[in-house]
């Protein structure tokens, strides 16, 4: 009987190889570090922020950034119209952006995976119902859909998450359905059926692990979108209600003073830009590492 030529003894899953690929992309790793920094900032906001984000001080109304004339280094990025420290509010605002972004993606991806697997593997009327629903939801412009829902449900943290997740699940659902349609035809799925495996086993244990990579990549890319959407809702006053600090509402707050006090809108705007950019670059890196079609 033949014995195999010896290979490296360490088991090496595809997932681990992908992570190693990701590690070779310095720009992506740097961006991921920026994202992690934001997350840490959100978690440890009370320790990082120099001031209470909601403490008003009318003497510091529209105070410029620390390096400008009339600024104080203790209030690094200046103060808003109510004299609140912008730097501290940005730090607390990170909590809202990241929490809502993560929560929406988590809810939407979970629903999307279940619906997509059922649609792609079971086919038949399940597929018809889910696919039509997806088509209908895709027909609505995202922001207007969310605005309508918020107007109906009223503002609030949970309602924002629901309003965004209502439509967001469509995106992972379509990805999962497409990948499932391809994967279900592969022989290892047929092999599992031949062994007597149940449909649940096949969907969750044979198919899902093989389609998770694109789902993770899509989830990270979409997280950046959701953060922008949340900021847009807050900007329109439909998001988190004052006085809770949120980047979108902070940009809105500074609108009236954009000429005399540019810093009030600009710094939260930059925070949105930086976080969204970092997530996008990191997710590009993930896509390159996880998707063999992009391998050179």
């Amino acid at each position, binding site marked *: 009987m*033949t*014995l*195999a*030529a010896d290979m490296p003894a360490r088991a090496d899953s595809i997932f681990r190889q992908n992570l190693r690929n990701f590690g070779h992309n310095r720009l992506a790793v740097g961006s991921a570090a920026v994202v992690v920094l934001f997350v840490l900032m959100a978690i440890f906001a009370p320790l990082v922020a120099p001031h209470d984000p909601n403490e008003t001080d009318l003497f510091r109304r529209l105070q410029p950034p620390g390096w400008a004339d009339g600024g104080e280094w203790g209030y690094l990025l200046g103060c808003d119209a109510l004299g609140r420290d912008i730097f501290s509010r940005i730090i607390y605002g990170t909590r809202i952006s990241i929490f809502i972004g993560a929560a929406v993606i988590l809810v939407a991806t979970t629903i999307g995976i279940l619906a997509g697997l059922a649609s792609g593997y079971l086919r038949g009327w399940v597929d018809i119902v889910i696919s039509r629903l997806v088509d209908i939801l895709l027909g609505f412009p995202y922001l207007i859909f969310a605005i309508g829902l918020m107007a109906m449900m009223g503002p609030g943290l949970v309602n924002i998450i629901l309003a965004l997740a209502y439509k967001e699940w469509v995106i992972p659902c379509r990805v999962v359905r497409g990948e499932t349609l391809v994967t279900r035809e592969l022989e290892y799925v047929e092999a599992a059926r031949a062994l007597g495996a149940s449909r649940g086993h096949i969907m969750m244990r044979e198919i899902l692990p093989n389609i998770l990579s694109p789902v993770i990549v899509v989830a990270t890319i979409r997280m950046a979108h959701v953060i922008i959407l949340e900021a847009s809702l807050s900007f329109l006053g439909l998001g988190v209600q004052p006085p809770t600090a949120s980047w979108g509402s902070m940009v809105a707050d500074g609108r009236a003073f954009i000429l005399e006090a540019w810093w009030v809108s600009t710094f939260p705007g930059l925070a949105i830009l930086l976080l969204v950019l970092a997530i996008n670059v990191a997710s590009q890196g993930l896509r390159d590492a996880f998707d063999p079609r992009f391998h050179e």
Partner: protein
Amino acid sequence: MNAPLLSVKDLRTVFDTRAGRVYAVDGVNVEVRRGECLGVVGESGSGKSVTFSSVMGLVRSPGRIDGGEITFDGRDLRSLSPQAMRAVRGRDIAMTMQDSLTALNPALTVGEQIGEVLEAHDETLPRARGARQRAIRDRSVEMLLLVGIPSAESRLRQYPHEFSGGMRQRIMIAIALACRPKLLIADEPTTALDVTIQAQVLELITDIRAKLGMSVVLITHDLGVVAEHCDRVMVMYAGQVVEEGPTRDVIGNPAHPYTKGLLGSIPRLSLRGQPIRPIEGQVPDLINLPPQCRFYSRCTVRKEVCKSLISMREAAPGHQARCVRVGKDSQ
């Protein structure tokens, strides 16, 4: 003329991978004589396809030619500019690929794809636009008829997916032959085809070779195909040529243990009832190869001297093998 049409000396093609350097082709010598059909036999990883992609100048990164001489019709191909090499490809040497579905462009009609080759290489075409178009069409029709595709005129306007696998293989041969090359390299032309279609395609290649007087290199893993269609055969193993000679000698009287093993491991209709004997073990990893006989780990007649570099030895006139047991000075 006695000079060979193609002569490759000591060719080395390497691939630099993260795991290390892979010696895919390691010191290969090939001679293709005018008008002959050379069979190149080997399993996956033997370097049979890489050898001829190297000749065509089609080795892609991370692979590169590390050394050796490639002389075609008196010209040193390795010294040619990329532009001059492009002119050689298609006009003087043509190659057909194993997978006819991916090797043909799905977005262009068959006529456009044959026309492209003629447009690029054929200097005999008239210059005037109308006459040129007509000449290209006539030549395309002629090529399809040559490879046995009926109603060629209308077939020219069809796309590759509208043809069966056997027909696509014929079309690829038609494209390869459009400029009447001196050498056709057919890389596993029939592996993806059914036996009855395979027989048609191979006979087509043999017939056209006789008709056009060109040389053919037939890359295959099927010794039966070689036995029926090739004048000479070259057996490759792990990046090296291990045996070469006239087909009748190599198959009737194999000198290398690998060739013997291959012949013994194939079930044959004519030898039904006789047991087959597999070659145990696997092809060695082409990274970090020790300087010894490449077949050492699987050889049943190995000796201590095999743990050194082995050169080709003559088994009979024109028949050589890379084994210490071959020839007069064998131990």
